[in-house]
């Protein structure tokens, strides 16, 4: 057992921390959000130069190498800066499809992703799915040697800037079945695909993707037909690890901001930070952050666990702890900041929106508690 970062990991952490410190002031972040396509292509290239876009992909595949712990380290720095670039959505989540599926053109896709020349997006969520990963009603019907896909996807991170969409659709099975889900690679601008961008509650760039009679060749299939679920589940597992890392970085930033505020804001004849009730609440926020950090580490270690049940259980364990910690730290960060805590302008407001979004991404606390129970009942 060893919790120390390796020297490579320390270097990675230092370089990403430096990047964030230099580029991610609050003012710069607002500028990035305002640019088309809602984030900075310039930053994206910097990430590519640091190898962050190929992180977690075997060097044999043209990636940068690195474990899920490395991904978590990068995510922590990104979380502190509330990076708006779709690194999690494109590299970790949609990239997870590349990582866990075996199909033609994979090397080329990894190389393009890693060098920053191709943006990926996963178009999977649907309106009625409510966090359940296997609930897919989009259909892919056999047509000749290929498929015709119909359906609508929502909350597609970077859906409008993606060069390739990985779209999930049913080639078989009932609406909640894990069997029968297939994944298709759909290039940008493909006929029948409509992409409508919108902002998420935390200011990120999402899209709704509508597929109407979209004709795809057999080669568009990623992995075997009907066997997309295990790939999807592992990709989401990777995304949960990254999200845990981001969450820890975000909570650290919130705690630091609040403690600084309490020490400098004067009221009733002295700094607010002299009030014990506020000190104790801050201590509780610290404890919640550290417990979340422990579970982020745990999630990173368990991401490569081969036993499906154990791995899925561990991911849900982590998401539950992260969700509870975000809830506590986020709400009290606002409360202790007083009036400015509920303004759009002050950083804590942005932190809180991000933390609220994170609580929901890839399933909220209730969902994962129910999922654990389901796994336990299945035994």
């Amino acid at each position, binding site marked *: 057992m060893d919790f120390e970062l390796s020297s490579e990991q320390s270097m990675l952490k230092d370089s990403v921390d430096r990047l964030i410190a230099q580029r991610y002031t609050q003012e710069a972040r607002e500028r990035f959000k305002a640019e088309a396509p809602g984030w900075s292509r310039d930053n994206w290239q910097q990430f590519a130069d640091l190898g962050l876009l190929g992180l977690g992909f075997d060097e044999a595949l043209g990636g940068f190498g690195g474990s899920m712990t490395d991904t978590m380290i990068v995510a922590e720095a990104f979380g502190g800066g509330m990076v708006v670039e779709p690194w999690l959505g494109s590299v970790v989540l949609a990239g997870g499809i590349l990582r866990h599926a075996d199909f033609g053109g994979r090397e080329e896709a990894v190389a393009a992703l890693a060098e920053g020349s191709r943006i990926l997006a996963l178009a999977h969520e649907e309106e009625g799915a*409510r966090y*359940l990963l296997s609930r897919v009603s989009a259909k892919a019907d056999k047509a000749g040697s290929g498929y015709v896909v119909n359906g609508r996807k929502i909350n597609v991170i970077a859906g409008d800037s993606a060069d390739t969409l990985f779209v999930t659709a049913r080639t078989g099975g009932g609406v909640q079945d894990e069997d029968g889900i297939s994944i298709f690679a759909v290039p940008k601008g493909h006929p029948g695909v409509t992409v409508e961008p919108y902002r998420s509650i935390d200011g990120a760039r999402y899209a709704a993707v509508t597929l109407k009679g979209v004709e795809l060749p057999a080669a568009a299939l990623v992995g075997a037909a009907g066997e997309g679920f295990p790939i999807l589940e592992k990709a989401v597992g990777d995304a949960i690890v990254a999200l845990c890392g981001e969450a820890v970085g975000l909570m650290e930033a919130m705690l630091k901001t609040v403690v600084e505020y309490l020490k400098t804001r004067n009221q009733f004849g002295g700094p607010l930070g002299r009030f014990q009730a506020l000190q104790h609440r801050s201590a509780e926020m610290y404890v919640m952050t550290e417990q979340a950090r422990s579970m982020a580490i745990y999630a990173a270690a368990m991401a490569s666990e081969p036993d499906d049940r154990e791995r899925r259980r561990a991911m849900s364990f982590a998401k539950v702890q992260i969700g509870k910690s975000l809830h506590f730290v986020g709400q009290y960060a606002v409360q202790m900041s007083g009036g400015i805590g509920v303004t759009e302008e002050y950083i804590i407001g942005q932190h809180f929106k991000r933390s609220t979004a994170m609580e929901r991404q890839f399933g909220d606390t*209730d969902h994962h508690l129910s999922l654990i129970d389901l796994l336990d009942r299945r035994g």
Partner: protein
Amino acid sequence: MDLSYTPAELVFREEVRAFIRDNLPESIRAKAGLSAYYDGSDVRTWHKLLDAKGWAASHWPMEYGGPGWSAVQRYIFMEEILQAPAPEPLSFNINMVGPVVYTFGSPEQKERFLPKIRSLDYWFCQGFSEPGAGSDLAALRTSAVREGDDYVINGQKIWTSTAHDADWMFCLVRTDPSAKKQEGISFVLIDMKTPGVTVRPIITIDGEHHTNEVFLDNVRVPVVNRVGEENKGWDYAKFLLGNERTGIARVGLSKGRLQRARRLAELSEVLDGKLSEDPFFRRRCIELEIELKALEVTALRIIDRQRKRNDGKPDPASSILKLRGAETQQFSAELVAEVAGPLGLAFTHGSKAPWQDLAEDDLTAVLGAVPNYFLSRAATIYGGASEVQKNIISKAILGF
């Protein structure tokens, strides 16, 4: 001891319900369904309808246009408004500046201001908070220097909600800089059109414009617009803040949200079926319902006690109502946001999401649920933060 509403009170409740049902404009009613906010004209429209009915100023003395209701009737009225939901009669006018004017104002002030305060022809906003003061209200620094028949006022106010809709502002200013903190403050009424008054919007975390900063730069206010004595403004402010505190629990608002959450949960699926059948969701609703029942009885107890005591002083026990009222408002807002689930990730507020079908059924109501939850975080901050309420209880009631 008798806990039930009297038959007369039940008849009154039915009358209020019927009035709201028959008179609330459909365009205003629809906004509640979309979790959208009322704009200034909605508030004015509805307020004037209430005023025409004689119901705008529910606890004012009848000589100034109050309806002559009992405390229980006032409570019933406000709960029905909140639960409908419909816009409330503007609190700044009805609960705050109005009572100050009819209690401490001159005969001329009463004649000039009260009818227009009641009818909302003069929309008032509140100029109390300042950037350097926060919960420590009495640390305010805005100065008013007497020049002839005017005060010349300089300073800055913050968290001035509805200043952008308002015609007037009631404002605390420092008229004696050498006096101790709570002394040397006066209470003045400022016409928002006076030169030197600048309103700058503050956008809150729901992305909306509810509140403002107000800059006062050599603003000349006639001395006749001061209410009560010079340097006694703190007393009037305390009177104002203690007035009608029994409505602050806003139980009706939370009840309305709970109903909405339960209704919307019928449309949402979780792992094993409908969210409305999920044992955890159901239990959370029941727990909120119990909490609201307890809070309602507590509010009625405090109303009853104040009525019996009749000394006009605020009851420190009403801190329970602010504390738990704010918490239940937050919890109920969160419950609706929980129902929204992943759909709540899209930033939509009174507008439709890009996926169009949903906007055609009831699930539209979940749109905006998360921004509403964001804004609800303010409930434990404004009007005396929860920490301040606990201080009040521990000092005024427990004697620490």
